[in-house]
Structures are given as C-alpha cells and as structure tokens.
C-alpha cells in the first residue's frame, strides 16, 4: 500500500512539473518581450517617474519634520498667551474696585436714559431719578 501511495505521489509530482512548465511562456514570447521596441525608453520613463515621486514624498517628509519641531514651540506660545490673559484679567479685577461697587449698588448696566444718568455717579437713587422724570413729564403736560 505504501509503495502504491509513493507511486501515486511520484505521478502527481511529474504531472505537477508538466503543469508548471506548461504555464510558462514559450521561448519566442520571452525573446519578443526582451527585444520589445522602446523598452529601455520605458524603463527610463519609469525611473524618472519614480524619482519625482520620491522627491515629492521627501518634501512632504521634510514638511512633517518642520511641523514636528514647530508644534512644541507653538504649544509654549499658546500656554504663555493663556497665562498672560489670566494674569491680566486678575490685574484688571483688582485695579477697578469702583466699577464693582457701582454694579453692587445699581445692578448690571442696562441701556436707557436712567442708567446713563445713574452711571454718571452723582449719588442719586433710583427713586430720585424716577421723581425727576415724573416731575419733568408733569411740567411738560402742565404747559
């Protein structure tokens, strides 16, 4: 049985070699391909194309390299800017207490004549301002 199996494998290997040889090109086709016109011109064109592609990828690589070096610098600048902003805000808050007092007294600023009058800081209360306006309107109506 072992002998039969071995014979079978030998037959298959022989057939396999035949199949492999059959799949190859014949000598004429190989010669025709080797002596194809303008083959070296095509090789030269392919080399030129590949060279350009490599140069392009090299320039992209150098750009990435420059960007890689620029990123930490830009990060430091951004952090410095953020620190400066926070510091200047803190400085403004401590430098203008009167503005805060006005806000505490009159509430947040709103547009309008009354607010403008109040903002001048003459020490008038809302009621006094209201009375002035009512009196002015009364005077106009009386005329």
């Amino acid at each position: 049985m072992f002998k039969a199996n071995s014979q079978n494998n030998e037959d298959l290997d022989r057939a396999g070699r035949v199949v492999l040889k059959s799949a190859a090109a014949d000598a004429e086709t190989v010669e025709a391909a080797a002596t194809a016109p303008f083959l070296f011109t095509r090789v030269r064109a392919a080399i030129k194309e590949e060279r350009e592609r490599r140069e392009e990828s090299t320039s992209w690589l150098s750009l990435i390299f420059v960007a890689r070096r620029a990123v930490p610098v830009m990060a430091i600048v951004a952090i410095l800017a953020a620190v400066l902003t926070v510091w200047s805000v803190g400085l403004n808050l401590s430098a203008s207490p009167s503005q805060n007092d006005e806000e505490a007294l009159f509430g947040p600023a709103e547009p309008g004549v009354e607010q403008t009058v109040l903002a001048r800081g003459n020490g008038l209360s809302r009621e006094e301002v209201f009375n002035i306006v009512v009196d002015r309107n009364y005077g106009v109506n009386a005329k």
Partner: protein
Amino acid sequence: MASLVEPTDDVLVSATVAGDEGAFEQLFERHRRQVARIGGRFFSQREQIEEIIQDTFTKAYFALNSYHGTHAASFKAWLTQIAVNCCYDHLRRARRRPEQGLGDIEESEAHEFSAQLRSPPVDVETRLVSRDLAAKLLARLSEEDRLVLTLLDVEGFSVAEIAEATNWSISKVKVRAHRARANLRRVLQRYL
C-alpha cells in the same frame, strides 16, 4: 587604439551610480534576456514579461547604491533576486484583482487532463497541457507555493539559491517546498 575589453558589470554599476546613463543602458542590454527568462517562467503574456523587465530594472536602478559586487556573477545573482521579487509581487497583485479570475476548469479540459495523467509517464513528461488549463490549475495555489515550485522544478534553482533569491531561510524554503508540493498534489489528485 580603443580598448576591446568589455567593462565588467561592477564597473558599469559604478559608472551608473556616478551618473552615467549609458552605463546603465549597457547593463540593461546585457541582462534583459535573463530577466525576461525569469518573468517568462511565471507569466505567459508578452506584456506581463515586459512589465517584469521594466519593474526589475527600475528597482535595480534605485538599489544600485546598496549593491556590493564580490565576484563576477554577483550582479546577475543580485538582479535575479530583484526579478524574482518582482514576479512574486506581480503574482500577488494578479491574485488581488478579481477581474483576473481564471474561472472554473471546463469538463472537457478536466477530461483531457485526466486522460493525460493516466497515460504512461514518459508521455506525460514530454507532453504539455494547454497554457490556459495550467494557469487555471496553478491559480489554486498560493503565490508562495507557485514561486517556490517554479524556481525548483522549472528554473532548476537549488534550495540555497531560492533562499538567496527570496531572502528566506533555507529551512523555510524546504518547508515551503514540501507544503507546496503537497498542495499541488491535492489540486491534481482529483484528475487522477
């Protein structure tokens, strides 16, 4: 009087690296048949073999800086290595392209092949099957199997030469060859 001695491959390589395009053309003229012969072992169409030649010499041109010739046949062996790798790449690419599918083996082809396998061994050795059928049968093998079997059985490379050409270890080539042969037997078994 001009010298009639042909410059060696290594001299031409050095000249090409130095920027002499003519030297590279001389290398091309000298070795293009060798590359075409290797391409022809794997591909039967003229256009495919031309592509192998073009790719091999293009890759060789950009790799010339890494070439260090040690003996007279160095450049040829080095170029063969590149050509074999190109063939392997093209086999892989051909497998990935669905339009390159070779389709099933027709009943008449299978019958004919079966009869051929049953004929006396001497006849089988001398007779070739149709190229189309051979391509369909080999499409059932992996690219590695096809590569190693073609180099062993058709190109007549030794295991060491295949290892050098493919950058595989000798033991890997042996294991690959053993498996490839078993796979090819399995493909052919159904026609016996």
